[in-house]
Structure formats: structure tokens, C-alpha cells
């Protein structure tokens, strides 16, 4: 599994893990993130059971497990969190933040050691030693209980399934040509996002944030002007077309 530092400064580092060459072909590729501060670490989107060994060994390159005090789960999908029973035994000291809506469901995976912190609908802020991470509501995009993670100091938005692209293995980490990239995102957003109202509301709220880097859970990371291009594109897109 590859690890790339995508943002760094003010005592904080964002590391993106993904593009695992050993992942079976039929399993959707996922990005995972570690936000590292001098005394803390937050694992965002712990991923599926299949990714666990590769992700753990990649994370260990950056910090020991005792430093990972927080795990964030954006929503209930298996590609986001079917590994939590494994993390539960690996990080018994950690707190797991996930939408309140999914608590009763996620507990079916087995997470009795980590402390479960339900995120209320309006979101919450996790204060670390060098930065604050804001859990920003992204409900119905696609999951009815769903959050993004925003770091205002490094201007990074971890956008979960928003901005996800379905493309062949070995694709680059960053979007380099939005026009070429757009078709790879179209089906995913049209089919998975059920609500135009929720989408438009999210676009409006994200436009108010200062975002240099938008990092989705699948596919490529958007930089600078491509973030705005994505917001414009999503705003114009018709969603919920599976009927």
C-alpha cells in the first residue's frame, strides 16, 4: 500500500494511504488517511477487512499504534469500516467517532473495546494538540448519516464518497485534467447520491470553506482550482437517476 504526505505544516501532517497492488481486482480501491500531530494521530476511514494488514503496516511506518487515539468512520459502508473489529483489538485505547445514526448497526461489526463516540447530526470538532478537525455533515451523500472531515489550518477536506471515481488500478493520486477525470466520477455520483437537495446544500456549505485539497475515499485528490471545478460540476449534475 502506498503512503503519500498530501499536506504538511503547523505541526500537522496528512498522509493518504491507498493504491494497494495486492488488493483483489473485484474489491473497490479505497483511500485511508492519517492525521498526525506531535502527540496524536487520527485514522480516517479505517477501511475494509481486506485492507487491514496492508494499512496497519503502512501506518506503522509513521507512528506506533499507541499514538492513534482516534478513529473516524464517515458512514456505515463495508469499504469504510468492515475492519473495525480488527482495529478494536489493535487500538483498544482509542475512541471511534461515527454518525450517531449508525451506532447500533456498526456495533454489529464488534467494537466493544474502543469507546464509541456518536457524532450528532450537526457534526462536532475534535481538538488535537496542533489542529482541530471538524466533522462536517454530508448526510444523504450518499449515506443518510455521513460526515466529511475538515482541517481549516491546512485547508484539507476529506470528502468521503464525494468526489469518488471508479477507475482502473494504478491511477495517479491527483486529478491532473478535470475534463478527462469527470466521466470517471459521473456514474458514481449520479447513481449513489439520492438527493438533489442534500447535494446542493453540501455544495453551498463547502463553497464557504477554504479548501486547497479535497481528498475523497476513492479515486483521486482535487487540488486548488479543481476543487471549485468539482463543486461546479456536482452542482450541475442530476443525481438519483437509478429509477
Amino acid at each position, binding site marked *: 500500500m502506498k503512503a503519500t504526505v498530501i499536506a504538511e505544516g503547523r505541526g500537522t501532517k496528512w498522509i493518504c494511504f491507498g493504491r494497494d497492488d495486492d488488493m483483489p481486482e473485484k474489491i473497490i480501491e479505497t483511500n485511508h488517511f492519517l492525521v498526525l500531530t506531535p502527540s496524536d494521530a487520527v485514522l480516517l476511514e479505517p477501511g475494509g477487512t481486506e485492507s*487491514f*494488514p496492508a494499512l*496497519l*503496516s503502512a501506518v506503522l511506518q509513521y507512528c*506506533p*499504534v*499507541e499514538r492513534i487515539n482516534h478513529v473516524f468512520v464517515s458512514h456505515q459502508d463495508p469499504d469504510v469500516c468492515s475492519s473495525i473489529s480488527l482495529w478494536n*483489538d*489493535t487500538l483498544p485505547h482509542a475512541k471511534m467517532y461515527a454518525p450517531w445514526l449508525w451506532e447500533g448497526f456498526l456495533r454489529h461489526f464488534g467494537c466493544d473495546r474502543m469507546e464509541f463516540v456518536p457524532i450528532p447530526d450537526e457534526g462536532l470538532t475534535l481538538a488535537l494538540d496542533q489542529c482541530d478537525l471538524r466533522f462536517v455533515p454530508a448526510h444523504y451523500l450518499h449515506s443518510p448519516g455521513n460526515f466529511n472531515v475538515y482541517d481549516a489550518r491546512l485547508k484539507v477536506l476529506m470528502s468521503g464518497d464525494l468526489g469518488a471515481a471508479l477507475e482502473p488500478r494504478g491511477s495517479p493520486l491527483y486529478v491532473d485534467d478535470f475534463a478527462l477525470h469527470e466521466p470517471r466520477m459521473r456514474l458514481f455520483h449520479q447513481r449513489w447520491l439520492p438527493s438533489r437537495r442534500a447535494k446542493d446544500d453540501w455544495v453551498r456549505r463547502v463553497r464557504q470553506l477554504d479548501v486547497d485539497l479535497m481528498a475523497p475515499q476513492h479515486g483521486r485528490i482535487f487540488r486548488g482550482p479543481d476543487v471549485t471545478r468539482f463543486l461546479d460540476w456536482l452542482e450541475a449534475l442530476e443525481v438519483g437517476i437509478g429509477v
Partner: protein
Amino acid sequence: MSEARPTSRRGATPFHVVAAGITARLNAILPVAQDITLEAVNAKALIVRTGDAVRAFRPITDYMDELAQDTIRLVRAINQEATLVLRATMEEMRLGVLVRALRRALDAYDGPNAVTVGARLAQIEDRRQKLETERRSRRHALDMLITEIDARMKAARIIAGTSRIEAAGAGPYQGSVGSVADTLERAAKAIQARIDECRRMLRRADY
């Protein structure tokens, strides 16, 4: 360190499937055991009605009652043991998955940050091995309980045979006594058939 994956024989049925099958078969035994109790009540009523004529039949009716109660108790004990073996098996399987995943992670990274994970892996492996020992001893207890219930049924069939001899001397009540013996024989056979199925399933279980 022993292998984390429970050894699985070719064509073997996973234990959790077997445990569910055993529970279902044992539950089917309970009404049969209750039939024996009912028949014992009928037989006792017959003794009261007939007085001395079938008095020698009395110990048999008492035995039937005891047998039915024992069967019900054993079925419940087997069910409970099967549930405990199942629970230990599931947890052992879960820990086996975890142990394999952690080993794979440590195979890929063995730098200084691996110390805590290594210690945790050792603890988890220890827990898994304790569960394996528990599962083996519970599995043995389960086999013993099944052997016990089987022995009861064999005894019941002998008693049924004795009752028939008794029936021959029961004059006008020969038919009634014979019918009690037949019911006992049928119930014991039915229960034995279920127990044999449980045994066969356990033999096919993967561990």
C-alpha cells in the same frame, strides 16, 4: 506457536453449522420426552384402576417418569453445551482472523513502531489458545452428554421389553400394558435416531 487457523478436514462441516443442526434435532426430542411423561401418567392411572393385577408394572412406570425427566434435562444440558462450544468456536475463529491479519502486517513492517502490535499479537494469540483448550474440553463434555442420553435410551428399550413380558401376565389388561410398552419403545427409538444424527453430524464437524 500453533497455527491460528483451526485445522479443517476436507469436506468437513463448519462447527457453527453443526451446532445449529444439533440444537434443531435436540429440540425435536423434547416433545417425544414429554410423550413419555404423559404415557407414564396413563400407566399410573391404569395401576390405580386395576389394583394388584398389574402391580409389578409400577416400577416401570416410575422409571418412565424418571427417564422422561432425565431426557429433558440432558437435552437442555446438551443444548447449553452446544451453545457454549459454538460461542468459543466463533470467538476462536474471530481471533484467528485477527492473529493472521496482525501477522501479515508485522511481516510487512518490523521497525521500532511494531513493538506494541507485537505485544498485543502475543496477548491475542494467548487468548485464542485458551479458547481452543476450552472448546476442546467443552466438545468432550458434549460427547459425554450425548453418550449418556444414548445409554438412557438403550435402557428404555430393555424396560419396554420387560414390560411386554409383564403384559403377558396382566390378563385383561394385557393390551393396555402392551400399549404403554410400545409407546416407550417408539419414543426411545425416535430419540435414539435423533441422537445418532447428532453423533454423525459431530463426526463430520471440522473440529
